[in-house]
């Protein structure tokens, strides 16, 4: 909301702003020097001050003392003194300091982050506006500052805090970006950001130290206000470091360890995989929640302190409090769901044995990476525990075959009847592997009527379901009709082979998939030779064009790729490890596809 207005406002660029502030500052110094040359400027000042205001009190004197203690030539000290005394020059001085901080920030940004991406600039603006808004509310709505000194002091304090927070935000965004999008080697960039984060952390801890030492002077409330945000920064920084820096390294380390442990035993694998899931998760969750709670307390404190429940300030604060509470609730709910699924997986889906892993040479279907340890679903499909966990958080079916998993856990715990049902389902799942379970129906009546008398007939109902599910061997005639269906698509497969496979899979589509994926080994030397010869002749005729479209789709995958290799440059099908090379390859392939299509289109036009 404030963004829309701000975008339209002509904000001066940093250069013009710094030029103006520098000019102002120089003129101020010149002015001050001029004024100091007058021998009795000091007495004038002091008397006028005393006459004009009684408010300027302790702090002013503190400043005076500070200046006395600093070892400076007298003229400079005088100038500083003058600048602090004069109201206008004080603001100019503050402005100059702000400008210096901004320039410093810009410098750090250029050194550490390089150019900012558009989204980062957008987030930066939004955060800055928000921050500014809330601080204004805080200063004028909550603690209602009166004196210029207080305003300047708070401005300075919030300035530094905001500065730190913005850089924390930048680092977080950038690290996230590095972890996700960018594929480049980013070790040095990471180092730079981590150093920056450590600096921020030390500054924040110093600020906490400052609060603690000066807590007595400030009063309990102000102390709490001030320390809350420093604490929040000190919490956030380790969180970011753990999440984006340590975590990826640790994951890599654990994966290496996994490979080493693989020979030893399943148990070690199991422990490692558990550690992998839980450690960083809990640290991250804890810090997240702590941060949110801290902020919530901070804002609640503000609302209570502001003493005026019906002001604009408290309205804005209450909105923020509401947002924070929903956020905390969401986090807790998510966490409970996570724990529940974790337990459920532990109970229902056992770890796959070494033998099963060896039999199943596929990678995990979710992340496409090798499985050293895996969990097994009732339908016998294997997945990494972490991958499966993430999927089950949003859906309750097997990713591969859509087998509907019985995730209605409350019912499992409530009554024995439904527990039997789930066990039955699992057993059937094992008996009939990739059965097409799209129409599988599980009636979970006990969940709805836990203490109802109708429960008594529920088991028989589920038995009925089980019997349809676990249908015994398909009859030969059924198998044959199914095999003929498959043979229509893949005519050169012998029917015996198809029937054998169908007996296992019980589904036309699964068998077809198996054939397409090359899982059904079948040697047909004559046909392959013939077809590849045919391909070669075709590719001779139309040199550049991809002739793959010319032959029937019934051939095996291997065959297709083979012929593809034969008429497209082999180099083009290599996957380079250098990004730039990949980009060029991709571009070439796109161009070639275009050219071929164009050529073909024109040829066809001529024929017609």
């Amino acid at each position: 909301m404030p963004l829309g207005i701000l975008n339209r406002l002509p904000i001066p660029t940093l250069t013009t702003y710094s030029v103006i502030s520098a000019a102002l500052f120089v003129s101020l110094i010149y002015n001050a020097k001029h004024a100091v040359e007058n021998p009795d400027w000091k007495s004038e000042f002091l008397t006028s001050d005393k006459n004009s205001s009684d408010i300027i009190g302790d702090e002013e004197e503190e400043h005076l003392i500070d200046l006395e203690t600093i070892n400076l030539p007298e003229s400079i000290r005088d100038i500083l003194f003058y600048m602090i005394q004069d109201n206008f020059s004080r603001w100019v001085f503050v402005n100059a300091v702000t400008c210096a901080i901004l320039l410093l920030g810009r410098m750090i940004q250029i050194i550490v982050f390089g150019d900012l991406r558009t989204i980062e600039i957008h987030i930066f603006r939004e955060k800055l506006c928000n921050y500014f808004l809330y601080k204004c509310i805080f200063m004028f709505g909550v603690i209602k500052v009166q004196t210029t000194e207080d305003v300047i002091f708070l401005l300075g304090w919030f300035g530094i805090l905001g500065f730190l927070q913005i850089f924390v935000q930048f680092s977080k965004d950038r690290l996230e970006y590095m972890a996700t999008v960018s594929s480049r080697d980013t070790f040095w960039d990471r180092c730079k950001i981590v150093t920056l984060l450590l600096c921020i952390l030390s500054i924040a801890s110093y600020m906490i130290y400052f609060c603690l030492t000066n807590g007595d002077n400030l009063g309990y409330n102000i102390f709490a206000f001030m320390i809350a945000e420093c604490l929040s920064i000190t919490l956030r920084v380790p969180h970011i470091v753990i999440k984006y820096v340590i975590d990826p390294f640790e994951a890599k380390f654990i994966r290496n360890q996994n490979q080493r442990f693989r020979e030893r035993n399943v148990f070690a694998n199991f422990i490692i995989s558990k550690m992998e899931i839980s450690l960083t998760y809990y640290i991250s969750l804890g810090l997240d929640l702590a941060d949110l709670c801290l902020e919530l307390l901070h804002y609640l404190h503000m609302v209570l302190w502001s003493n005026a429940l019906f002001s604009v300030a408290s309205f804005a604060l209450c909105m923020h409090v509401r947002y924070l509470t929903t956020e905390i609730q969401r986090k807790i709910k998510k966490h409970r769901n996570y724990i529940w699924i974790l337990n459920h997986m532990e109970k229902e889906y056992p770890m796959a044995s070494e033998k099963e892993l060896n039999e199943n040479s596929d990678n995990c279907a979710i992340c496409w990476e090798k499985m050293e340890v895996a969990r097994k679903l009732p339908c016998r499909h294997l997945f990494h525990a972490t991958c499966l966990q993430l999927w089950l958080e949003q859906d309750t079916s097997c990713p591969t075959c859509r087998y509907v998993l019985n995730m209605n856990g409350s019912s499992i715990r409530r009554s024995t009847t439904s527990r039997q049902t789930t066990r039955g389902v699992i057993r059937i799942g094992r008996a009939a592997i990739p059965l097409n379970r799209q129409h599988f129906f599980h009636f979970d009546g006990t969940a709805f009527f836990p203490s109802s008398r109708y429960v008594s007939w529920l088991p028989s109902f589920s038995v009925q379901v089980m019997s349809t599910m676990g249908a015994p061997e398909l009859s030969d005639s059924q198998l044959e009709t199914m095999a003929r269906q498959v043979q229509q698509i893949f005519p050169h497969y012998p029917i015996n082979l198809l029937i054998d496979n169908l007996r296992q899979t019980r589904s036309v589509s699964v068998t077809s998939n198996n054939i397409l994926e090359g899982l059904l080994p079948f040697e047909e030397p004559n046909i392959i030779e013939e077809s590849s010869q045919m391909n070669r002749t075709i590719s001779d005729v139309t040199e550049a064009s991809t002739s793959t479209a010319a032959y029937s789709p019934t051939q095996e995958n291997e065959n297709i790729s083979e012929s593809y290799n034969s008429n497209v440059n082999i180099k083009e099908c290599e996957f380079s490890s250098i990004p730039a090379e990949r980009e060029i390859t991709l571009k070439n392939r796109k161009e070639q596809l275009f050219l071929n299509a164009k050529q073909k289109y024109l040829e066809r036009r001529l024929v017609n």
Partner: protein
Amino acid sequence: MAGAALRRLMAEYKQLVTNPPEGIVAGPISEENFFEWEALITGPEGTCFEGGIFPAKLIFPFDYPLSPPKMQFTCDMFHPNVYPDGRVCISILHAPGDDPMGYETSAERWSPVQSVEKILLSVVSILAEPNDESGANVDAAKMWRENREEFNRISEKIVRKSLGL
């Protein structure tokens, strides 16, 4: 987690380069950002889209492959299952939870087993055989059912335009 998405996308990219399906080229628009791809799809033989090369943009979520990518044609496309702005409406691109049309079973929706290759092949197949039950483009669906000649004429135009002819 997003690192997992990146690794998986890299694996898919590798597979699409080393073992490409016929008439399909796909890869990230820029190596800097692996979450935005461009795919070129050849119109299937024997259909009204035959021979056209249709570019489309794929945008992947950070939790890919747990959530489906979004796909949008960046060329002109007149098809019952493609919205007028180019977004592709096929059931395997719908997240398992939501069902905007209320006509699909969850078995037809997204699952992490799907891949870019499978998505693109499905899109090729709907180019060949539009599913006029789920009309993303009502005009196109109506024309496909009632006035096939006109539909063919328009798609011919689209094919020619896609080839820059």
